[in-house]
């Protein structure tokens, strides 16, 4: 961990009322400190509350108890100050806007002055290598390209923090690996802090400086694995012996908690989705 804390989650508990099932505890006793410029992955079985934890950091849902601080401020203030950008599993592009208009959206809302706005859009599209697709519409792009647009949009107003909720979960393996390299390039170029939710062990190990392994029912962080692989990470990294050791370490930390309570997951996920919007 380096620098000052960008995310500070202290003793957070989150419970949901699930109709007909009483109260379910999604997260319990969560402590997490993320320093500036870190790349931290949250990994765990479905229902472990990793997405809920991400949404708590983004103030898209509020904790039942405990505190969430972002950039030294309560999460709500950080959201209002637009301290973070977010990327979801689906790109959530507005289909009535073309690529550059989608990237421009947050800048319009913030009220960035026009010349600065256009310069920023150009810069972001170069960063994700979509400069040639400025005027394309979302339906004309592949899934990977759409997700790159959504990354450009998340970074458009230079947030200190990037939240990514299984951003490559819907992509095929090849595209996913390419996107992993892309996101590391963006991370290296911008020096942004990233919190990354994933199901994939290789992805978490390849990308992260630290991997927080979570267990379900209730959701807890059971182990934090430091990923000491050298950077920049390339295709060779995935063939490195240390990489395999770390993958094994994360896998063993995860082992034994999969599959036990899958039946409850759907209900909890639904409750999480509903609870988070209001």
């Amino acid at each position, binding site marked *: 961990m380096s620098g000052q804390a960008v995310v500070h989650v202290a003793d957070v508990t989150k419970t949901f009322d699930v109709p007909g099932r009483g109260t379910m505890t999604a997260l319990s006793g969560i402590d997490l400190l993320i320093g500036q410029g870190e790349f931290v992955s949250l990994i765990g079985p479905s229902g472990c509350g990793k997405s809920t934890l991400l*949404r708590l950091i983004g103030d898209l849902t509020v904790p039942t108890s405990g505190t969430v601080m972002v950039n030294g401020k309560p999460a709500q203030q950080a*959201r209002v100050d*637009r301290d973070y950008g*977010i990327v*979801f599993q689906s790109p959530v592009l*507005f289909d009535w806007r*073309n690529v550059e208009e989608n990237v421009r*959206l*947050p800048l319009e809302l913030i009220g960035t002055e026009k010349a600065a706005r256009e310069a920023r859009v150009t810069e972001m599209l170069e960063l994700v290598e979509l400069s040639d697709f400025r005027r394309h*519409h979302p339906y004309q792009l592949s899934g990977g390209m759409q997700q790159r647009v959504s990354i450009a949009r998340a970074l458009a107003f230079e947030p200190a923090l990037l939240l990514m909720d299984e951003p490559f979960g819907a992509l095929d393996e090849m595209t996913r690996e390419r996107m992993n390299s892309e996101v590391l390039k963006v991370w290296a170029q911008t020096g942004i802090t990233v919190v990354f939710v994933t199901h994939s062990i290789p992805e978490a190990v390849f990308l992260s400086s630290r991997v927080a392994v979570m267990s379900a029912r209730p959701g807890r962080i059971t182990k934090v694995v430091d990923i000491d692989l050298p950077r920049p990470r390339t295709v060779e990294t995935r063939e490195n012996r240390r990489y395999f050791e770390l993958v094994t370490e994360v896998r063993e930390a995860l082992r034994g908690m999969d599959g036990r309570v899958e039946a409850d997951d759907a209900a909890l996920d639904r409750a999480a989705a509903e609870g988070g919007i209001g």
Partner: protein
Amino acid sequence: MPRSPERPLKHPRRRRLLAILGFIGLVLVLWEGVKVIGGDPWRVNGELIWTPPLDLKFASDINLPHVWSIAAALSEPWRRSADTSLFMFLVGKALYTWREAAIGFALGAVTGIALAAAFVHSQLLERAFVPYVVASQTIPIVALAPMIVFFVGNEILAVVVVATYLTFFPVTIAMIRGLRSPDPRALELMRSYAAKRRTIFWKLRMPASVPYLFTALKIAATASIVGAIVGEGPGGVQDGLGRAILDFNQTYITGPEKLWAAILVTALLGISFYLLVRIAELWWLRDRASAVLT
């Protein structure tokens, strides 16, 4: 050969046009076919050329005039000593009615959008008023139109109000759906930008609801014309299709072709208005996948 998505049809426009013309042809053949089987005896210049074997009442020349009688009526003066043809006469009336309908259509669309926006933002309003919006549509317009004329006073305004009344409902219902159509993630995205409700409405809910709006507007286009025509009767408006239909109704026994011609022109008006909305839809949604697919 079966159609595959990879192999698009050759000349899709030409094929569609052929299909439309083919269908019209089929209707004409069936129409005259019924008259061959069971209509009145066929005469050309007073000379009997065919006596149908059956006597079907609905196929008589009064109930179902020959298509060429209607065509001839359209090209002849609309009444003795008039110098405009029935067709041009009806087109003039249709344009007049269309103006009323279009104003009602626009007002109805705005009313419908405004109501839907209010309902989407307030559950209380939605629970309180949606039942009345629905109830309003179960009252027969023929019963309501005279009351509207009485309340509004001004004839043309009354017709516009009736057209509005028939238009706002489909727009309201569709826009409630449309304004609620954004993905929950899109709403979260806006929340992550700390966007205000008004911003979310204009930047997300409204644009997302446009496809729903156009679906409703296509229904509303034809409904507004029905509203205008029905309103013209009690409204006492003399220059529209409604008056022409009532007049030709009264003289049906002596000239059934004229009423049929009026119905034909009314249908053409409805189709034209519908197509106008459809063209606007294709243009507006040209960049969205949904419009490309349909």
